[in-house]
């Protein structure tokens, strides 16, 4: 018996749910950032599973592009986190409730 497509989708759904719950529960900006990365990865798993089961390379291409977007997000997001920390001396998201630095 081979792993079915739905198994991969179920695993991806569980990972996405854990990531979403983490984004809501966590207070630390960096921890929330890592939970967002987790959600991106679960979507990547869906892409790769569909690409593999439908024998189409497009899904894997878009995984590649999602990874690039995640890298860009990491660079800009961590820059924002450093700027917030410099101005507020904390990483708590509740303290950063206004857009002004």
């Amino acid at each position, binding site marked *: 018996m081979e*792993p079915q497509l739905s198994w*991969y989708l179920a695993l991806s759904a569980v990972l996405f749910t*854990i990531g979403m719950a983490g984004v809501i529960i966590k207070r630390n900006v960096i921890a929330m950032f890592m939970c967002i990365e987790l959600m991106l990865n679960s979507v990547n798993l869906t892409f790769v599973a569909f690409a593999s089961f439908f024998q189409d390379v497009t899904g894997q291409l878009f995984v590649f592009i999602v990874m*690039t977007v995640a890298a860009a997000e990491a660079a*800009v997001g961590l820059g924002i986190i450093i700027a917030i920390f410099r101005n507020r001396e904390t990483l708590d998201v509740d303290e950063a409730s206004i857009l002004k630095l």
Partner: protein
Amino acid sequence: MLVFFFILFGAMAIGCALAVVAQRNPLYSAISLIGVFISLACLYVMLAAPFIAAVQVIVYAGAIMVLVVFVIMLLNVEEEERRRPRLRFLVPAAIALAGVLIAEAAFILVSVQESRVVPTSSTSDVGLTQSIGSALFTQYLLPFEITSILLLMAIVGAMTLARRGALLPGRDQSKRSD
């Protein structure tokens, strides 16, 4: 055999993901997240996508997580202190929303299960580096170029944000005490 590996790496991914959320120290969360990435890379290999698996390890577990760990150590983050009472209602809200999401996913899963899909044979060339490269530079050239512009914008934005002192004249010079 494949089922055994799926269960092994899937359980590893879920366990590490739970650890990411459960840990209070962000550094431990980061290490657990690397575990998730590695087990997902193993799953990609099982799905006949070796190129994506390699990129997953190099870009995610290598570059991005090094950046995150670097920032964690740079900012010297302590453990999260015990939660204050405000916004306490968000925890049951998060659990309820997670239940809704799982239910939606289960509905889709049932629908997928009804449509018959033939499992992949590992002899095709989908997922090899050559097929990805040729598709990336012919059919999907526009997304590729847009991604390069996005990366350029990210570089400029990160430099602007992380720079000490303001780039614009006459702004923030007096406010920043560092």
